[in-house]
């Protein structure tokens, strides 16, 4: 456990000092600018726009930091072979991967929660309103989504043979994971049996990122979010991440470092 914590701290410090937080700062500036612009261009429901825009901004900044972090660390760890030094130490490859995942996730939490504070500030001070209780649930959902994507991204890092590959795989997983809800809709349409089999495989293999998309339902009066839903979503996030982590670990065990 102490070794995992050491890798987590190392990764966290590495990412924080990699100027990735500039991305966060730029996201905050863009969000504030957009909110200001929209308050001029739009009329009515400005608080709703602030809130929706803010939640989207939190997710986008988390994703950007994740993608850039993956690119930066791939160059250091894999291309420049810094990973040799870690793996030659009394540290299992599983511990190394888990430590990296937790380090990335901590940075992501910092970015998402920091953006969340900016959003709350904008809503209260610029919009003069209050933050709906569901906002905090949305933040946790975004963090769960980030955890799944971080696990996937780092697993790709252990499998891929280039930095571009890692970034592209993660990027497309985000897209496909979000349109997975529409795969179910497609399955109900008339089409060939084999295409349906293929779609069903895609549906089960890709992460169902729409399950974490509470931000699009913040004002939905039909939304039910109770203990049963929380249980499902938490169990889903951790079971999916654990499968991905195990696959990443097995790949890392098998990977050769020339």
């Amino acid at each position, binding site marked *: 456990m*102490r070794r995992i914590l050491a890798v987590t701290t190392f990764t966290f410090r590495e990412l924080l*000092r990699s100027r990735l937080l500039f991305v966060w700062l730029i996201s905050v500036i863009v969000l504030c600018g957009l909110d200001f612009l929209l308050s001029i261009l739009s009329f009515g429901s400005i608080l709703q726009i602030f809130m929706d825009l803010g939640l989207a901004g939190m997710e986008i900044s988390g994703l950007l930091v994740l993608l850039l972090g993956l690119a930066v660390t791939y160059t250091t760890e894999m291309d420049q072979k810094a990973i040799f030094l870690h793996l030659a130490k009394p540290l299992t490859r599983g511990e190394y991967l888990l430590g990296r995942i937790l380090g990335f996730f901590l940075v992501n939490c910092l970015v998402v929660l920091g953006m969340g504070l900016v959003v709350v500030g904008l809503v209260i001070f610029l919009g003069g309103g209050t933050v709906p209780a569901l906002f905090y649930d949305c933040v946790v959902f975004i963090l769960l989504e980030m955890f799944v994507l971080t696990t996937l991204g780092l697993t790709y890092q252990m499998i891929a043979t280039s930095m571009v590959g890692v970034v592209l795989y993660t990027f497309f997983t985000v897209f496909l994971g979000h349109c997975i809800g529409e795969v179910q809709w497609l399955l109900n349409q008339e089409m060939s049996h084999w295409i349906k089999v293929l779609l069903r495989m895609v549906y089960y293999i890709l992460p169902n990122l729409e399950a974490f998309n509470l931000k699009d339902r913040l004002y939905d009066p039909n939304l039910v979010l109770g203990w049963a839903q929380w249980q499902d979503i938490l169990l889903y996030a951790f079971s999916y991440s654990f499968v991905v982590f195990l696959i990443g670990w097995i790949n890392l065990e098998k990977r050769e470092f020339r």
Partner: protein
Amino acid sequence: MEPTAVMTDSPCAIQIRGLSKTYKTGFWFTPKVTHALKGVHLDIYENQAFGLMGLNGAGKTTLIKLVLALLRPTAGSVMVLGGSIAQRSVRQQIGYLPELPYFSKQHTGRELLEYFGSLHGFSGSTLQHRVDEILELIRMRSAAGLKVSGYSKGMLQRIGIGQALIGKPKLLICDEPMSGLDPVGYKEMRDIFIDLKKAGTTLFLNTHILDEVERVCDRIGILHEGSLKEVAPISKILESSVPVDYWIDVDSGEAPKLSGIPFQEAVQKNGGVQVSGLVLAETLSLLTSRKAQVKGVRPLSSQVEAYFLNAIGAQAHLNRPRMGTP
């Protein structure tokens, strides 16, 4: 020829049996196979320093990576400190310095050593004390608080050896440890190795630098094109009669006295002549017979170099007839 292991009373720190590594490259339809290592047998004994020599691409780094399980062998086995490298207890006792170690540039030297120390199980004041000891040893105390991005190549190499030593290793594996070091750094590193050897650490050095081998190592092995050609104690090599090259310093003004001798032109042009040790005595007597004044004679290569070149079959190539050689 299968190299014969020199038997000692010490137990094996690394025991390599029939180790082979094949790399497959290219596409499905045009596969290309490279045999990086071909059935290597090697024993490295505890409390000794072993130097692995070979040309670039001989397979030295591949061998080290196989020992550290960074690569998987195509065939054969490796035992390290009596166990498998996969065991944490074995890794706990190993230090590794890769060739030109690369670190995350966002950390300071001290932070890196603290991190690697914590991977070895140190924590709290024990960790701090150990880091201070290492910083003192590698003479990096004053630069320890600076980010690695500002370090020179030599400083990086020092931090590299620092992280390798932080866990008080019983076995230290170094891949080209002297690369990037200036003469002072080179001497300091050599002194560290000598001290470690005195303290009972087993050293496995993969190097090009023959002087380092001669001064530090107890035994050397020569790897050529993936095969282990020779393994011998350094004392035997130094006593061996492998011919080395010499430079005979003759004033160019003496050249007219050497008319009819093939190296007359070389003496006139270069102020001396390079000869193989095999013909040194004959050349000197020839010069004396012509009353040419010999200002001095010095060896151009060491016994180890000659042994190395001889083992890889390069001696014949390098000893091709040279201008001025009788």
